[in-house]
């Protein structure tokens, strides 16, 4: 009969009207500034640079200024100048370091490609999203001082991923040390210094292992 469909519709909306007062499924909104949704571990926003410790972020940056991310970044929002000299990194090895490392977050599209291509686990995705500023120019151009965040922070926001990365780095370091030791025992004069450029070795699973391991 004419109108039955209309009445049915009224029934559904009435159900939702009443349900919104007692059924959490029917009132799904969060009161944002007071209540915050829990960000999933994989959530990504803008990149940051991982440094080994918080007290000396510039001295312990993992980044070696290899400029791979700068080349691969689709919107070209990264700008790097690498140093002419070498400085000891967190492990004490002499490394080139980025003198300038800028990310223009007004251009960055949070695609995570820089993270995937980085062979040194030096750049990771941050989860800070309340970054509105009144200055659309320089406030959105982050330099390396603003980008550097300690590894502990990385553990805080991406615990699973960070643990994997740490384990991998540790294994790499150990392997390198043993290799060096093995190399040092017969011929102490020639210590192999791995080149800090794009050809640096990277574990094959690294690009794919952005998140949790396969169950």
């Amino acid at each position: 009969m004419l109108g039955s469909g209309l009445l049915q519709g009224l029934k559904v909306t009435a159900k939702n009207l009443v349900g919104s007062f007692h059924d959490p499924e029917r009132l799904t909104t969060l009161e944002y500034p007071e209540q915050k949704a829990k960000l999933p571990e994989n959530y990504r926003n803008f990149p940051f640079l991982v440094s080994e410790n918080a007290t000396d972020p510039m001295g312990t940056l993992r980044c070696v200024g290899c400029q791979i991310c700068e080349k691969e970044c689709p919107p070209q929002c990264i700008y790097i100048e690498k140093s002419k000299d070498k400085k000891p990194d967190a492990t004490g090895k002499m490394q080139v370091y980025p003198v300038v490392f800028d990310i223009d977050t007004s251009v960055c599209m949070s695609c995570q490609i820089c993270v995937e291509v980085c062979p040194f686990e030096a750049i990771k995705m941050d989860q800070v999203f309340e970054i509105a500023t009144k200055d659309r120019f320089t406030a959105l151009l982050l330099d390396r001082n603003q980008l550097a965040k300690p590894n502990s922070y990385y553990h805080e926001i991406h615990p699973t991923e960070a643990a994997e990365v740490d384990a991998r780095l540790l294994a790499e370091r150990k392997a390198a040390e043993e290799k060096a030791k093995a190399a040092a025992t017969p011929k102490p004069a020639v210590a192999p210094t791995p080149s800090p450029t794009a050809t640096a070795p990277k574990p094959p699973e690294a690009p794919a292992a952005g998140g949790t391991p396969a169950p």
Partner: protein
Amino acid sequence: MMETLEQVRDRLLARFPGGEVTLIANPGPAAQHSLALGLNQAAAMALFLRDDPDLRLDYCSNVTGVDWPEKEIVESTKVTVPDPAGGPAKVVEQKTKRIQPGYLEVVYHLYSMALKHGPVIVRLRTGNRHDQVTVPSFTPVWRSCEFQEREVFDLFGVKFSDHPDLRRILMWDEFTAHPMRKDYVEPDDYEWEPTPHGTVLEKAKAHYPATAVAAPTAAVGAAHHTPAAAAVTTAAPVVRSDTGLETRATPAPKEGTP
């Protein structure tokens, strides 16, 4: 199952005695080979492809243009220069070290919804890239070409005769160039932004000589381009330019950062 592309070519040649049909091999793993049709009978051939009971390519999925300029042709002949024998692709790569004039190409991907086969890829090639850029339109054969051919016209500059409504589609009507051509130079318009990239800085200098934005740009640029000035970024010079753009070398503290 659909007949092979060679058979289609042979039937087309038999049906249109004066026509040209060339099989173009695709050396890649996809092995999607294509037919280049001569322009003089292309529309009739398209009609044949659509209405032939064995082919019934009633659905033209994709229409696009490709620009092959003069210089690049030496490198890219692997893909495009036909293999007369239709044999394996390797042979082609070695023989094509010759300079060809550039041309524009329109590629049609045809499928059959009735017989559920495809694709048959059809290519039309213009004589050159300047004055002989007219190819017959397939819009009368497949309506789906209407907007896509307009797009090819807009972005590549291929003209389609018999197209019912050949206007620019994505760019505005007053636009003159064809942006998808390989030799397209983007217009020199520029809005100042504090990016450290060298090319943008060069542009900035050209557009804002000496005064105005040159000051903040120079500040940013100097800081980034001379290692000695790297420390300047950590200081906080506030630069106020004549245009009222105020820039701080140390950006505002990020709120919400733990």
